């Protein structure tokens, strides 16, 4: 089956305007030839490459891991070399949600709201032991792992993870995405 542009997250006017029908360009060339003429696999790779090189995180620092996340933006563990120093405060503008810190049940609802407000494609990194599994707090107050409410792509262990460890997680995410692994919401069947 030939892949369509929309399969790669690109909207064409076909989707925005369902009843319109093919454009003049497509009528002349034909739909299949158009996509082959554009070299779609290279396009897919190019799109993924662009997405990995500027995956902007959301400011979701909760606890101790947030301090290490701030130090990853610092000059020693420079996150700007990956194009990610622009932490967006608005989830509408963010691609990556780094859940850094322990998530209490009271905070779980805002976390899910923030996740829902993000636009596809979006990724989640569970930073630290508390976000991955509840960490050392196996009690009434802490959500035992943030993957109970949002689908997680990468889990970064330690308490708190060294900035290099978080960077390892981020780079693995980049490599996974570049290789074609879909974001977690497609794999884990969690409602987006």
């Amino acid at each position: 089956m030939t892949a369509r542009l929309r399969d790669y997250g690109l909207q064409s006017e076909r989707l925005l305007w369902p009843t319109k029908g093919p454009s003049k360009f497509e009528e002349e060339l034909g739909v299949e030839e158009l996509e082959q003429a554009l070299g779609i696999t290279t396009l897919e790779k190019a799109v993924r490459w662009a997405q990995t090189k500027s995956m902007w995180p959301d400011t979701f620092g909760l606890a101790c891991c947030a301090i290490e996340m701030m130090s990853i933006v610092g000059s020693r563990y420079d996150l700007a070399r990956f194009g990610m120093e622009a932490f967006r405060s608005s989830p509408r503008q963010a691609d990556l949600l780094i859940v850094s810190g322990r998530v209490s049940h009271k905070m779980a609802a805002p976390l899910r709201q923030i996740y829902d407000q993000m636009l596809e494609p979006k990724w989640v990194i569970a930073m630290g032991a508390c976000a991955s599994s509840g960490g050392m707090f196996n009690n009434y107050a802490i959500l035992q792992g943030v993957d109970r409410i949002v689908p997680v792509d990468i889990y970064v262990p330690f308490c708190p993870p060294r900035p290099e460890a978080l960077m390892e997680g981020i780079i693995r995410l980049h490599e996974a995405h570049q290789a074609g692994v879909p974001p977690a919401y497609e794999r884990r069947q969690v409602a987006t």
Partner: protein
Amino acid sequence: MSATLSHVGRARRWPFVGEPVYEGSRIPPRVPTVLDVPAELTESDDILQVNFGPNHPSTHGVLRLIVDLDGETVVGISAVVGYLHTGFEKNMEQKTWWKGITYPERIDYVGYQNNELVFVLAIEKMLALEVPEKATWMRMLLCELNRIHSHLVYLGTSALELGAISMFWYCFRERETILDLFELVAGQRMHTRYFQAGGIAEDIPMGFYPEARKFVDRMPVALNDYLTLLDRNKIWLERTQGVGLLSADDAIALGQTGPVLRASGVDWDLRRDSPYLAYEQVDFRVPVYTGGDVYDRYRVRMDEMAESTQIVRQCLDKLERMEGEPWISDDRKVVLPPREELHTSMESLIHHFKIVTEGYRVPAGEVYVAVESPRGESGCYVVSDGGPRPWRVHFRAPSFAALQATATCSQGTLIADLIAIVGSLDAVMGDTDR
């Protein structure tokens, strides 16, 4: 409800310094932590209620403020906390004393050594355990380094929120050096779990003293850089001076301690007035300012960084002469024996086994110990039933008390000043919510 404490310092003697910031009390009359919208404005349509939700652009963590705005002026504010409530106190009742030391660090996750210290001091107080001198001085050194670390994080994030974004990178550069020192000593950058009941976990490694000296020589230069960048910057001065006023009487009534109290003209520092560790043997000054605004809190913290550097230097001088001394108490009932002994001594093996599996026991009783953490008075109230686990542990969080002053400080300010005020109170949400 009387909010003016007329008995407190009308003669303005020590610990009060200077003139009151304002006369009377500005604590809201109905509920001290909630600023109510004035009656004449409640019927008007111009009040906009904005939710500074738990996730917001500033770097304070998960604090939620419900703010009523009349234009840009704040006319009503109330804070909702609890988004980071972790149940530390209940969790610590399940763990032995030794294993429980990992928990307090994560409460105030920026000044973590101080929380460890206060819990360990409480255990030692109940056990009447003697701590070797080397451990005391090393604890003091690490706590002062942690104070510098905490104030650097405060300065970086506060300046970031007010728009002076490059301060963030400068402060975090120095912070990385401090974390390197922690890693050199304890193996872990944050949450070091280095303090134990009886001393410190391991001996001070080789190479620590030269590295620490390099830092101590570098720090005054860095502080000078920060002062140059900020202190004569007109925008910084205009945004911080005269904003968020809190008088000394109100600060005492609201239970403020630490830099917030010292910036309001109260000369009170637990390190000097109720010394713990070896603070009576080091020379340091306590900075006190009388303006009670955001700028003075900033100046208090900057001066405290300079004083902490001096304390670290004095600790290094003292510690370098204590090479080879014990770093932890030799009471085997409480302290793990050195690993080499486990091969040869049956008693050591048994002690090790008992301490790790069952835990050492602390006599029944209740104590309250307080230290001067970077945020103020951080205290630990422990009730022991004589067993291997605490019966009740409660941490007095300075950030919890500091956030109670939000309503008083932010009367009639603009919303942009609200960010400056909450930043200057330096509240860490882990500390607030525990």
